[in-house]
């Protein structure tokens, strides 16, 4: 079969004030009709740049500096804007990441479809309407004709992404470039969209390039895979070979960092290519250090007891009670966490798992129910001295490493804040020494203290957050999606760090995530949440082996098939 798209030696440059950044270097790849090529890499790998370069929509001031892009036997480089416009939409379709922002909010779906159909195919008037209906039906939207008059905001996220796909198909293109098409969607919808793309690819003999950071997506949909690292393609091959028996060192470490749903590993194997590997960590001696003085001794007490917790948010205010729209964010939730245990809360977005975490951390107050931390009630009298003291033992690590640190404070002041506020040391010199020790211990190095947060990468910032949490000498650590904003290899190192800390300090941990493989690696017991309520609480292995609740089964089925991965060495 001849190649649909053939890229040879492509160089893409972004001139910046600190010199030219080569976003892609000597990239070569091919796509055949009816084939899904997965372009995978972590942030900064240059994978999105390739997609934009093909249709000549690089963000300024980026430019293609060398190489060739042959599409259906013709060179795409060096074409005029008018010529490229005939290629875009007509012959190459594009799907973007976020369906919330990809559609014009002020025009109906029909208007946007008809406009695109008229431009790309020349079909006009009511025939264009008919064609729009056909397209919507092809992407699985029911009552398509009536939906033509609807505006984007009247669709759910998944439906919008279907509309986006319909728009990309409007010109009957031969190649579709999908840039992280499911990253903004929930797991259950992700699966549907991927199935749809795969189906369209087979039915219409389309070439598809899926750009993604997610190995799960690749395992699910790709036929062949290109692995990119720092602007270069390091390895290309059939999906089974890349995932099961990678050749390149980078691919190996990437695959090793992917959390497994099928077995629990003690730690992730750390490999050279990963930022901040464990080798550099200068650990402190917990036995003798300030930090270790307050560590928990093993015991069978309950660290957290949650009873019949309820919380509603007002969606729409109104004077009359019956007109108010309320969202039951937390619905009669009860569970207990033993001391030294890692308790997982898992669910899709909107399941209330983060709200429960914030209730325990004292960021929200419940409508009803009680929370006891180490036996002390912190809900009935939240301002009482005992409650305040008990809550000090609870610290939290947040999701977004870019917003969880005050950009105007040096790392020293960020980490030292709780120590200084509670006067936990006898002198400022001691405080500073402790902060430096903590930074060493989380793998940043004491030099980090004098820098500002923006000088660090996402993973490093998450380490600062961890150091700040440790500075309060907590007994209980709440981790709210601590790695979901990070690349998979960085995620592995952060999860390793959290595991280590949990063990050495005897921490009780509440681990919240939407990611089943991650929670399998971290937790002893798991609660599955949906619509604010807990569906099932079970031991981790039990849950993954034999889920009882229907929803747990459903979630586990949606998990990307990872059976292509070989058995990783411990």
């Amino acid at each position, binding site marked *: 079969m001849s190649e649909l798209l053939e890229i040879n030696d492509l160089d893409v440059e972004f001139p910046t*004030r600190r010199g030219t950044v080569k976003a892609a270097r000597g990239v070569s790849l091919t796509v055949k009709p009816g084939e899904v090529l997965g372009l995978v890499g972590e942030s900064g790998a240059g994978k999105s740049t390739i997609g934009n370069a093909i249709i000549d929509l690089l963000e300024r001031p980026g430019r293609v500096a060398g190489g060739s892009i042959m599409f259906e036997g013709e060179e795409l480089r060096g074409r005029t804007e008018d010529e490229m416009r005939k290629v875009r939409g007509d012959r190459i379709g594009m799907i973007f990441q976020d369906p919330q922002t990809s559609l014009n909010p002020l025009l109906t779906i029909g208007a946007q479809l008809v406009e695109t159909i008229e431009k790309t195919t020349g079909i006009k008037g009511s025939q264009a309407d008919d064609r729009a209906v056909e397209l919507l039906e092809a992407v699985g939207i029911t009552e398509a004709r009536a939906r033509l008059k609807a505006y984007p905001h009247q669709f759910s996220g998944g439906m919008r992404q279907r509309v986006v796909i319909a728009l990309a198909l409007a010109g009957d293109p031969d190649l579709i470039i999908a840039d992280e098409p499911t990253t903004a969607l929930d797991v259950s919808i992700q699966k549907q969209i991927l199935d749809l793309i795969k189906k369209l690819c087979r039915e219409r003999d389309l070439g598809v390039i899926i750009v993604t950071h997610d190995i799960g997506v690749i395992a699910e949909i790709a036929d062949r895979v290109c692995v990119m690292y720092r602007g270069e393609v390091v390895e290309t091959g059939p999906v089974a070979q890349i995932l099961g028996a990678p050749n390149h060192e980078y691919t190996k470490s990437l695959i090793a960092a992917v959390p497994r749903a099928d077995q629990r590993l003690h730690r992730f194997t750390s490999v050279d290519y990963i930022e901040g590997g464990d080798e550099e960590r200068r650990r402190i001696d917990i036995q003798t250090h300030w930090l270790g003085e307050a560590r928990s001794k093993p015991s069978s007490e309950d660290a957290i007891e949650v009873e019949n917790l309820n919380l509603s948010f007002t969606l729409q205010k109104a004077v009359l009670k019956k007109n108010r729209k309320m969202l039951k964010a937390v619905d009669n939730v009860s569970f207990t966490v033993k001391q030294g245990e890692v308790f997982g809360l898992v669910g899709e977005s909107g399941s209330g798992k983060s709200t429960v975490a*914030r209730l325990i*951390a*004292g*960021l929200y107050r419940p409508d009803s129910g009680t929370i006891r931390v180490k036996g002390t009630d912190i809900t009935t009298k939240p301002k009482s001295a005992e409650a*305040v003291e008990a*809550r*000090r033992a*609870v*610290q*939290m690590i*947040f*999701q*977004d490493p870019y*917003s*969880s*640190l*005050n*950009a*105007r*404070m*040096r790392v*020293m*002041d960020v980490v030292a*804040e*709780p120590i200084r*506020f*509670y006067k936990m040391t006898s002198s400022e010199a001691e405080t*500073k020494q402790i902060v430096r020790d903590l930074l060493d211990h989380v793998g940043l190095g004491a*030099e980090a*203290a*004098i*820098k500002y947060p923006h000088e660090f990468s996402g993973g490093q910032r998450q380490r600062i*957050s961890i150091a*700040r*949490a440790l500075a*309060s000498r907590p007994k209980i650590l709440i981790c709210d999606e601590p790695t979901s904003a990070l690349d998979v290899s960085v995620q592995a190192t952060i999860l390793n760090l959290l595991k280590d800390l949990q063990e050495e300090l005897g921490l009780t941990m509440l681990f919240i995530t939407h990611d089943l493989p991650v929670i399998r690696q971290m937790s002893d017991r798991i609660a599955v949440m949906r619509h604010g309520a807990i569906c099932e609480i079970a031991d981790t292995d039990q849950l993954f082996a034999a889920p009882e609740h229907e929803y747990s089964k459903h979630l586990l089925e949606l998990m990307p098939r990872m059976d292509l991965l070989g058995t990783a060495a411990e």
Partner: protein
Amino acid sequence: MTDQPINITPSRWQRLKDNDIYWSFINSPGAMIAAAITLICIVAVFSAPLIAPFNPFDPSQISLWDGKLPPAWAEGGQSQYLLGTDNQGRDMLSTILYGGRLSVLVGIAAVCLGMVLGVSLGVISGYIGGATDAIIMRIADVQLTIPGILLAILINGIGRAVLPIEVRDEFAIYVVILAIGLTDWPQFARVARGATLVEANKEYVQAARVIGLPSWLIMLRHILPNTLRPVLVIATIGLALAIIAEATLSFLGQGIPPTTPSLGTLIRVGNEYLFSGLWWITFFPAIALVVLVFAVNLLGDWMRDALNPKLR
């Protein structure tokens, strides 16, 4: 936090040079020219007693015989009066320098008043929320229903009416500052509140709450420093507007009295002689005012672009 590390790896100067804002400044000729003009203007007006050839408030240096002289280069001009003299025989250059000083002072004072008031109310409003927020923002909304300059005229008018006639001129300058400052605050409050709402939802503020810090400390140490960027932009543009507002009030005869003229008062006085062809009495103060305001605006314009993360 007086935390001075012993060995600063990148020095403060290197940090500054590495800063995007500094870089944007160095690469924007408009911004550099604006900063230079603003700086020159401010230095010139504040050193007026040193560099002005005459003291326009010293009767011994003023002679009515020298009144209404054209600029030095025009026919009938005298070399010691570079920009000519006004109707009372005061040297134009000197009156402009002294008048400019008053204009700049009033502008800065008014902006500071509006900023302190607006930012504190805005941050409190945004962080506390609930009824406090509703009350403060409703007041701001109602005030914004009345156009700024009208309100300034009104507050100024009331202020003057309340004062006894004898001290009216003496206190005129404070009344003007009060009028402009009180007119300004809702802008600052809105911006500060908007920024606070964004910041308060960020996880570093939640982290501070989990640590157990009290609200006032969170507002002061965490939120306030992070709202300053947009506030700074508003303050710069606000300074330009405040200088214009003072000039406008004075031009309308509502502001600074002619005995200690500001730029606006000078233009008002000169305007009466415009039809008789004595153009310089209006022209030079007007140019001085426009150049000053333009430079500040240019600076504010660049700042808005440089501090907007979306544009970078």
